[in-house]
């Protein structure tokens, strides 16, 4: 598929690593009742995810300006974060205080935002040809 670019794949690989590291420290913090580890891991995870998205998104736009209002990167983040979280807890790698139901609820609520974002993406597609912005196609 043409919209799966090399920078999207690099982003996916990066956030797989970041999410696994985050899950490890989050579970460790919860298991040991360490608020500092929990907060630090969440803040560092958020910042590193933001920087990764910004960096690879910028590179991706320079390579091929796909007009998707950020949907591909959002969907990738959603799939990877939730798949790793569900597997992490489902396989028993999480803390004993972590419940699978909470991760499922996060996936569902986040999924609602994904659907809203998808609607915006479909709307943006009206102004594009093969996912490239009509206004920006010919220089």
């Amino acid at each position, binding site marked *: 598929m*043409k919209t799966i670019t090399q920078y999207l794949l690099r982003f996916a690989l990066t956030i797989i690593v970041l999410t696994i590291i985050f899950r490890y420290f989050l579970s460790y913090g919860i298991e040991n009742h360490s608020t500092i580890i929990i907060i630090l891991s969440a803040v560092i995870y958020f910042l590193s995810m933001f920087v990764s998205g910004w960096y690879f998104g910028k590179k991706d736009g*320079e*390579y*091929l*300006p796909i007009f998707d209002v950020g949907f591909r990167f959002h969907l990738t983040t959603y799939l990877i974060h939730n798949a790793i979280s569900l597997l992490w807890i489902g396989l028993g790698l999480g803390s004993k205080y972590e419940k699978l139901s909470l991760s499922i609820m996060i996936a569902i609520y986040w999924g609602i935002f994904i659907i809203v974002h998808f609607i915006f993406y479909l709307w943006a597609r009206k102004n594009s*040809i*093969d*996912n*490239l912005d009509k206004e920006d*196609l*010919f*220089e």
Partner: protein
Amino acid sequence: MKNDKKLNELLISWENTYKKGQLTLWIFMALQESKKYVDEIKGFIEKKSNGTISCEEQSLYRALRKYEHIDVLTYDLKEGNKGPDRKYYYLTNLGQELFNQFANRNIKLFYSTEIKNILKL
């Protein structure tokens, strides 16, 4: 003297606006002539436009990727002198038709006697 400076500034301003959108036409003209790889396209544009169209390599690559993405051009891989294979770009049927129709609607009108007379060519 003051008018010369103003005229020059106006000309540059108009030309800058006019040149936006020209790169596509020049790329298509280059490929209409023959299959070319990036350096040849760049050379064609700079030579045939008498240097009036500056062609940054990065802009050219970006434009080619976009046109390849929308299927108006494609490429054959051929061995280069050294290094990796070269991409020799050419217009697809869709690209050829797009170019023909664009030229008919926007370029040919400049060749009517009436317009030529106005332009004093």
